[in-house]
Structure formats: C-alpha cells, structure tokens
C-alpha cells in the first residue's frame, strides 16, 4: 500500500501535466457513463417501483397492472400477430399522411418564401386555419372522407402540413439575400433557384417542421383511430378500454411511445445525412 502510494506520488511529481490531463479525461468519461446509466436507471426504477407497489397491493392493479403483466401481454400479442397488424396499419397511415401533407407543405412553404404576392395571398389562410385544434376537425374529415383509410391519412397530413409549411417559409426568408443575388447573377431560372438555393437553404428549418409534424402526427393518428377506425393502435387502445382489457391498453401506450422514440431517432439520422454542410451537424 505505502509503496504503491509513494510510487504514484513520484509519478505525479515527475510528470504532473500528463497526469492532470489523464485525470480530467477520466472524470469526463465517468461523468458521461454515469449520466448514461442514470438515463436508463430512472425509467427502470419507475417500472420496478410500479411492480413492487402493485404486488404489495399499494396501488390498484385493476388500473395499474404490474409491468410484468403488461410485458407478458405484449409478448402474447406479438406472438399472435395482433400487435404487429395494428402497428403496421398505423405506420402506413402515418407514412402516407406524411407524404400527402409534407410534400405540398414544402412546395407551398418555399413558394411563399420566394414570392411576395403568393405570401400575401396564402399567409392569411394559414394564419386563420392554423389555430383550429386539429382534433376538432375530425368529424368534418369523417364527413368528407368517410370511415375508410383516407380520413386517417388526411388527419395526419393536416397535422404535418402546418408546421412544415410555416417552417419552410421561415426557412426561405432567413436565407441571406446575397445567395439570391448570386443565383440571379448566374441567370438561375425559377426552377433552378428553387432547387439550388431556396430548398437547400431552407432545409434545416424544414427538418424542424418535420420533427414538430411527427409529434402531431402521432397524436392525431391515435385520436383518429379511436373514433373512426377498426384497426390501428388508437383503435386497439380504445377497444381495450371498452372491454376493460387494461393490460392491453398499456401495451398500446407503450407501443406508441416506442414508435415516437423510433421516429425521432430516424429523423435525427436523416437530418445528419442531408444537412452535412451545417457547421454544427
């Protein structure tokens, strides 16, 4: 012990600088490791407390079935294919809704950013319709598009459209005017200006809009499927409530949370790929 201590002491005095750097690095590493462990520990801890208090009878397991039972139910539903079926149909609606709402939003948003007259015409419409809660127009959408697939897809599309369009316009407006001068000086036409300046310049803002839209899409698909569908995660949660299959309801909630998490990771990766030119990407 004493020999070891004196040895480290000697090492410190002979090369104090390397020692210091080494210690600093180790401290940072261990802080990061500790934070990562903590970020796993808090949800796991909650589940553990939930499990124990449920088993001990401190909470009502009719409303809060133990996590072990929910996971058991999830596995059962996975095996039977029921869960996969609902997940796939919901994902399909979200994807179609993203395409149906997102692409026109990018095009319209960018054109609004480029053209003052178009902005003057379209902006009041967006300002007037944006504050309407999207869930409140569900009956109207059901009236127009019926109970089929289209009404669900349209709900998602509406949710995605607004944040993407608004951000695309803001994205074009923040492009430094010099880049548009460069385009004009090299005789870039309308399409080339859109393609080479407005779209790439606005892309960081558009990605922010898409991330906001993804959050809204999940909310709206759940609501739309609860009311007007015979499939999908929203429907699964709602029918579980109707039959008082509480564990099944939790499976639905867990699954939606996982999908949201997955989408946000996916979008972050997409962003990193297409906005490589940003200094902080």
């Amino acid at each position, binding site marked *: 012990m004493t020999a070891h201590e004196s040895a480290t002491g000697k090492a410190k005095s002979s090369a104090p600088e390397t020692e210091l750097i080494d210690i600093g690095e180790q401290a940072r590493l261990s802080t990061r490791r500790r934070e990562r462990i903590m970020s796993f520990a808090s949800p796991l801890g909650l589940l553990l407390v939930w499990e124990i208090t449920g088993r001990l009878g401190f909470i009502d397991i009719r409303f809060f079935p133990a996590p072990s039972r929910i996971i058991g139910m999830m596995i059962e539903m996975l095996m039977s294919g029921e869960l996969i079926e609902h997940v796939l149909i919901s994902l399909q609606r979200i994807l179609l809704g993203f395409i149906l709402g997102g692409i026109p939003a990018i095009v319209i948003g960018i054109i609004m950013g480029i053209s003052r007259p178009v902005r003057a015409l379209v902006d009041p419409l967006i300002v007037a319709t944006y504050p309407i809660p999207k869930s409140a127009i569900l009956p109207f959408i059901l009236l127009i598009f019926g109970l089929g697939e289209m009404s669900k897809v349209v709900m998602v599309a509406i949710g995605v459209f607004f944040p993407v369009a608004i951000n695309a316009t803001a994205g074009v407006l923040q492009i430094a005017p*010099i*880049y548009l*001068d460069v385009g*004009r000086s*090299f005789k870039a*036409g309308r399409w080339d200006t859109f393609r080479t300046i407005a779209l790439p*310049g606005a892309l960081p803002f558009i990605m922010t809009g898409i991330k906001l839209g993804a959050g809204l899409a999940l909310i709206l698909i759940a609501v739309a499927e609860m009311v007007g569908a015979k499939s999908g995660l929203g429907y699964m949660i709602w029918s579980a409530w109707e039959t008082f299959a509480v564990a099944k309801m939790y499976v639905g909630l867990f699954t939606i949370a996982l999908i949201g998490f997955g989408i946000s990771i996916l979008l972050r990766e997409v962003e990193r790929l297409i906005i490589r030119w940003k*200094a902080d990407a």
Partner: protein
Amino acid sequence: MSVAAHPAPQRPIKIRINHLTKRFRNLVAVDDVSIDIEEGTFFAIVGPSGCGKTTLLRILGGLETVTSGEATIADPAPGRPQYSIIFQGDSIFPWMTVWDNSAYGLRMRKAPKAEIEAAVAHWLERTGLTRYAKLYPHQLSGGMRQRVSIARAFANDPEVLLMDEPFSALDEQNRTILQQELLRIWEVDKKTVVFITHSVDEAVTLADKIMVMTASPGRAKCIIDVTLERPRNVLELRNDPRYGRIVYGIWGHLKDEVERARL
C-alpha cells in the same frame, strides 16, 4: 475635373455607361456618371464609403435598375456568358461543396458535363483548391472561401468580370496573397474587369485605369491611367517609386471626398 487625356481607343468598347443616375427615394447614389471601358481593361473604381460604387456595379450586373441613363455591356460571343460577379464577403453556397460551388455558373447555363468537369478541374487547380474540392465552405478559412468565389466566376468563362470589394473582408496577408493570385490568373487571358474597392493601394496594384468617385452623390471625379507594366508583382510594386507617386496622386483627389463623406 482632371481627366487624363487618352488616345483614341484601339480596342472595342466593352462596357458603356452613359449619363447614369440612380436614386433611392431621396438619396442620389450615382449621379450622371459616364464611362467607356475598353475590352481587356482592368478598370478599378475607388471612392469613399457610400459613394455609390457598389450600386454602379450592381446596375452593371443587372441586380439594380437605373433611374435614368444607361449602363450596357456589349453582347457576348455566342455560347459565352456576358459577365460573372465576385461578391463582397461570403457568397458561396454553404450547402454545396467547393466543387459544386465552382460548377454553379456552368450548370446554370446548362454546359455539357464534360466541359463542366474540365473547367472546374482547371480552375480549382489554378486557385489551389483541388485538394479541398469535396469540402464544405464551413470547413474552409475566409481566404479559401473567397478563392472558391473566384474559381466560380472564372470557371463560368464570362467576357466581363464584375468584382465588388472581393478582398475587403480578408486580413492583410490573405488580401496580398489573393491580389497576387488574381493578377496571375487574370494576366493569362485579360478579361475585361470592373473592380470596386475602397483601397487606393489595391486599385493601383491591380488596375490599368482607376476612376475616383466623389462622396454622396457619387460622381466620376477623374480617371487615372496606371502605366505600371505587367506582369506585376504585388510585393515589388511597393518598392517602386512610381507606385508611391500614383497612390499619392490618387489620395490627393480622394482626400477632399473622404473628408466630405465624414461630414
């Protein structure tokens, strides 16, 4: 008004500015300026800040309209662009690589792919950017970014180059280096250049003719011929007594204007 007497032009007039006036609301930015610039001339315009020299260039580049008079660049040979602009400050697209930025002009005029590749390779080589072709602007220094801007303009192979204080945002060492490189590149095929600057030294170093502009409203005060022979060496020029005399002479014209601009 002391306009240097110059002999009848031997070369054709490339740029003609005739009684040009530009007004922004109440401000007269350019007031009745007339100049003829011969083909192959490196023409510099110096003047105090706010004398309308950038406005003049933007009018030539089609980025501003005229209030009265005219500013015209002769029609280019078929298949060649009339002009390219090298802008002040950062103007290369941050979302394109060095290569794509350099190819921009050629792509916009739908040049054949092989021609684009040859021209970009050539000009990246000439501007010392070949190794950086795949990098994005944020990975480059300010001097490197301005080199990309030069490569972009030259690769487009225009008949006229319009440069708006291209080196003003750079530190002195970088500015000197880029001035030398610009001279080296330009002296090969001597395109017609209009070069805006507030630096008398820079104008004398680079130009064949220098127009001194008055402070607001911007008028043409005089045109000075720079008779220093080419090719020029930026550092050697500083040691040449004729250089000092020309710079001193221009300051004589400019001094009153700078003082007037400060009022």
